[in-house]
């Protein structure tokens, strides 16, 4: 039997013979399929990450500004110094605030797209959500410095609406306010929320798309009011999507180093700290240690989400 199969192949062109060989030898097919991406993923992607983590144990001599290979935990200890810990807390607070805001703004848009949008409306919303991502991120951030400046359009609108008094009150709130919108934490928060919003909407929309309408109807049929249906049926089923979106917004905020430089008050973020340590100071080990912080935080966040049963519906 075997020989007749092989004989049947000899007359065929090479491409066909190759396809047939792959069909018969599934392991060879999988080997060819996976080798290039696994090489990239293992060596370039994870390899460089582990090289970075390894460097976080190197020693930095602050007197000679030189890095030596002597392994130490000093970099991790110094993360808990008052100034460094402040940076972590500041970044974490902003990341949490931005994540909550994008989820609150993103959910209704995603819900409308899924439940009410016609095909054309859906297309429009997809483009509208992703359109900002077609422009350079740095250009958009610079554009926001203009929008938020005292000569900018936002101030102009607020003045013409007679709300400048209210704005001044808001800007006087400690931790949120500042001299102007462009130099306040509020301004920074607005820009972060603007920039990362698509990353929240798209996963939520994908998750909503997978919830059959008849589950919501069944809930109403069994006597649940809309708020109960939302809390007991819709939210649990969509929560993995919200978690996926929040991983994007959370980690992107934790690692960003452009927006904190251009908008908002002085004071370093994790991203800007890494940028400074690696660039102007040359303290690569501390920069590496700082990079471990977002990874750890996201890990903690995911285990908390798992504990609440966020992934049970997957």
């Amino acid at each position, binding site marked *: 039997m075997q020989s007749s199969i092989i004989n049947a192949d000899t007359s065929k062109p090479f491409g066909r013979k190759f396809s047939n060989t792959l069909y018969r030898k599934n392991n060879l097919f999988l080997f060819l399929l996976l080798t290039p991406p696994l090489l990239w993923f293992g060596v370039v992607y994870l390899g460089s990450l582990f090289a970075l983590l390894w460097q976080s144990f190197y020693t930095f001599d602050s007197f000679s500004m030189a890095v030596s290979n002597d392994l130490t935990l000093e970099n991790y200890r110094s993360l808990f110094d008052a100034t460094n810990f402040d940076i972590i807390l500041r970044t974490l607070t902003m990341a949490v605030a931005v994540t909550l805001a994008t989820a609150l703004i993103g959910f209704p848009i995603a819900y409308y797209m899924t439940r009410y949008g016609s095909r054309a409306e859906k297309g429009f919303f997809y483009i509208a959500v992703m359109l900002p991502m077609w422009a350079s991120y740095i250009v958009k951030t610079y554009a926001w410095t203009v929008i938020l400046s005292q000569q900018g359009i936002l101030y102009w609108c607020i003045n013409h609406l007679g709300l400048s008094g209210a704005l001044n009150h808001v800007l006087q709130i400690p931790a949120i306010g500042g001299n102007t919108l462009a130099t306040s934490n509020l301004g920074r928060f607005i820009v972060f929320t603007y920039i990362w919003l698509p990353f929240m909407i798209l996963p939520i929309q994908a998750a909503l798309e997978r919830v*059959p309408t008849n*589950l919501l*109807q*069944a809930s*109403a*049929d*069994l006597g649940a009011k809309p708020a109960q249906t939302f809390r007991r049926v819709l939210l649990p*089923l969509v929560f993995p999507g919200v978690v996926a979106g929040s991983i994007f917004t959370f980690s992107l905020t934790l690692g960003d180093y452009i927006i904190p430089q251009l908008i908002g008050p002085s004071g370093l973020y994790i991203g800007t700290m890494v940028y400074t340590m690696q660039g102007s100071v040359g303290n690569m080990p501390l920069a590496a240690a700082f990079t471990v912080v977002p990874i750890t935080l996201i890990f903690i966040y995911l285990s908390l989400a798992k504990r609440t049963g966020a992934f049970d519906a997957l």
Partner: protein
Amino acid sequence: MTAIPDVFTAVEFSIVSKHYGDVRAVDNVSIAVAEGEFFSMLGPSGSGKTTCLRLIAGFEQPSIGSIKIFGKEAAGTPPYEREVNTVFQDYALFPHMNVLDNVAYGLRVKGIAKPECYKRAEQALEQVALAEYGKRKPGELSGGQRQRVALARALVNKPRVLLLDEPLGALDLKLREQMQLELKTLHKKLGITFIYVTHDQSEALSMSDRVAVFNRGKIEQVDTPRNLYMHPKTSFVADFVGTSNVINSAMAQQLTGQNQPFSIRPEHIKLGTNEFNDKQNDIIKVAGEVVDIQYHGATSKVEVSVGNQMLFMVLSNTELSEAELPKISQRLNLCWSKSRMVMLENQAS
């Protein structure tokens, strides 16, 4: 038919229409379902039967007309304020909850204390013989088991009307027949109104007290299963309920001298023999050619071309040997008794 007093009417449609753009999914439908009745809505897909069910459940609102549930106007009332519960076609069990939580859901959202909810949910699961399955997720159950959970989830709320949307459609034949029996038993035991949507005419005939036959958004006939089968009013009903030969008015003119279409059941058509001579006025005789024969176990279905029409007849395989059965393209004489014919309303079929 005498008018049913309001108190005994569970669900009443008065000239209800539902339009989607230009499409009339439900067109001028009026029905009254009596309390405690097993009422079926039968029709091909897209005939408006499911839309009618969804109008009762409250998932859709009528474009025109009034829907009363126990005498109370339901149009404009949301589903969660109606005393009806639905068993969905694909069950619609909540995938993130276990079976017990699914069944307890309706009680939980009404604010009943947790222990009481679970006690009643467990009883409901026992009723459908799934007491052991409370901790499982719906995804771990078979189709038939999911069907029972969906039933328990609806019944635990003690609805006055139970709506069933092709609940057995996804089950295989054996299981379907078993569930038909169980549903019928359950209906007798509970004494509540069942409104049952199906496209399976044998299911509708065997289970229901009354059946409404739907076609293109309109009701063709509402009647008992026996009357629907024996006395169909329209050619659609004659054709859809059971198999029937609907003879159009042109051919009827030739056969009976009357310009009125009629139907004749396949089992009433006999092979023409010498028993009947021309003197018998109550016999209709036709000649045709065999086009196809299908073997169905106890019977064989024979398709005969007569003029420009096809007639189906059923021959018993126990009475006729294989050699005695007609062959394809053989000429046949057929006959039937006039008394077996059902006159239909004169309309374009």
